[in-house]
C-alpha cells in the first residue's frame, strides 16, 4: 500500500532523514518512535509533499507519488502537531468548516462527537476547551473522512487514560475497515503495533 524507499530529507543543508525505507500494508499500524527533533513530523510532512528538500521514492498502491499527481494526499488524512482548529469557532463549526474537506450527515457528526465524549461541548468555543479536549475534536474527524491512510502526529499526547482508550478503539475500528495508520510518538504504545525508531 505505502512503500518508502531511501527517503532523505534536509533542512538548511542539514540531513534530517537519511536513507529511510519502510512499507505499510492495508490494515496495518506503524509507529515511528523518536526523541524531539528526530524528524518524526518532518517524515509525515515529507510524505505529504509539504517539504520540498527531499529525495527518495514514495509509492502508494504501486504508483509513484509526486507533488503533481497528489495520489497520496487524496486518500489520506493528516493530523499534525498543530490541530488546525480555530479558537473562535465552536466544536461543531470547526468540524463542519474544516480545512480538510469532510462531507457527512449531521447524525454522523454527532455520533463521532459522542465517541470522543464531546457531544455536550458541541456548541462551546474551541478556545474554551482544554488541550486534551481540543485533541479529541481533531480525533472526531477521523470517522468523518473516507481516507485510506491516517498520518497522525503524536495521537496519544495530551490525552488522559479514557482518551487513550478512545483513540485505541478508533484505530482498531478503522483498521478493521482496511485503513492504515502511520503514527509518531516518543515511546512505543502498549498496543502491539509495528514500530521503528528514528534515532
Amino acid at each position, binding site marked *: 500500500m505505502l512503500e518508502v524507499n531511501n527517503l532523505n530529507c534536509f533542512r538548511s543543508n542539514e540531513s534530517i532523514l537519511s536513507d529511510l525505507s519502510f512499507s505499510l500494508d492495508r490494515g496495518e499500524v506503524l509507529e515511528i518512535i523518536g526523541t524531539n527533533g528526530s524528524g518524526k513530523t518532518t517524515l509525515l*510532512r515529507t510524505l*505529504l*509533499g*509539504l*517539504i*520540498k*528538500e527531499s529525495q527518495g521514492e514514495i509509492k502508494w498502491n504501486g504508483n509513484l507519488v509526486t507533488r503533481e499527481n*497528489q495520489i497520496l*494526499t*487524496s486518500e*489520506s488524512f*493528516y493530523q*499534525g*502537531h*498543530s*490541530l*488546525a*482548529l*480555530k479558537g*473562535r*469557532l465552536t466544536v461543531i*463549526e470547526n468540524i*463542519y*468548516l*474544516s*480545512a*480538510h*474537506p*469532510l*462531507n*457527512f450527515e449531521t447524525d454522523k457528526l454527532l455520533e463521532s462527537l459522542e465517541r470522543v465524549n464531546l457531544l455536550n461541548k458541541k456548541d462551546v468555543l474551541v478556545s474554551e476547551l482544554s488541550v486534551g479536549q481540543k485533541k479529541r475534536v481533531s480525533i472526531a474527524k477521523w470517522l468523518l*473522512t*473516507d481516507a485510506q491512510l491516517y498520518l497522525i502526529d503524536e495521537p496519544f499526547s495530551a490525552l488522559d487514560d479514557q482518551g487513550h482508550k478512545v483513540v485505541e478503539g478508533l484505530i482498531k475500528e478503522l483498521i478493521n475497515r482496511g485503513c492504515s495508520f502511520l503514527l509518531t510518538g516518543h515511546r512505543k504504545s502498549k498496543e502491539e503495533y509495528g514500530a521503528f525508531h528514528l534515532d
Partner: protein
Amino acid sequence: MNKLSLTSILFRLLQKDLLIAYRKTSSYLTPLIFFLVVLTFFPLAIGSDSSFLNRIAPGTLWIAALLSSLLAVESLFNEDFNDGTLDQLFISNQPIFLLIIVKVFSHWMITGSPILLASMIGVIFFDLPTSSIFTLLVSLILGTLILSFLSAFGGALSLGKGAILSAIIVLPFSIPVLLLGTAATNAAIQEIEHSSYLFFLGAMLFIVMPFISIATAEALRINSD
C-alpha cells in the same frame, strides 16, 4: 462518502473566515477606526477652507485607505500558518490559487468594505460634490481589492515574520493603484473625463488577481516548508 464540490469547499472557506472575523471585532474595527481617525484629523489640522479640502481630499482618502489595508496584512495567513490550517489547505487537493482568491476576497470584505462605507463620511468632511461619490466608490472597490491581493502576496512572502516586512514589500507595488485612484477621484471632482482611470484599475485587478494568487500560493508553499 460523497466528495464535496469545489463550490461548496470555497463557500465553506469564505463562511469560516467571515465567521471568525465577525467574532474578532478588532479584525474589521482596527482598519476602520484608523481610516476614520486619519480622515477626521486632516480637516481638523488643516482648517475648514472648502476649496483646499476639496483639492487634498482624493489623496487623503486614498492614503488612508492604503495604510488601513496594510494594518491587517499580518492576520491574512499567519494564524493559518501557526495553527496548521495552511498545511491542511495545501493537502486538500483543491486548486490552491482559488482558495487564495477566496481568502483574499473574505479579507477584503472584512477590511475593505467597512472603508468603503466610512469613505462616505470623508465625502462630508471634505465637502466633496455628490457627483464624485460614484467614481470614488468604484475606484475604492477596485483599488482596495487590488491592495488586498498585494497584501496577500506581501503576507505570504513575510510569513511568520513581522508586518513591517510585508508593508515594505507591498508599498512600492501599491503606488500605481494610489496614483490611478487619486486621479480618478480628482477628475470626478473637477467633472472631467474619468472613466479611463476606472478602466485601468479594473484591468489591473483582472491581471493582478490570477497572477498574484499563483505567486502567493508558491510563496506560501516555500515559506511554510
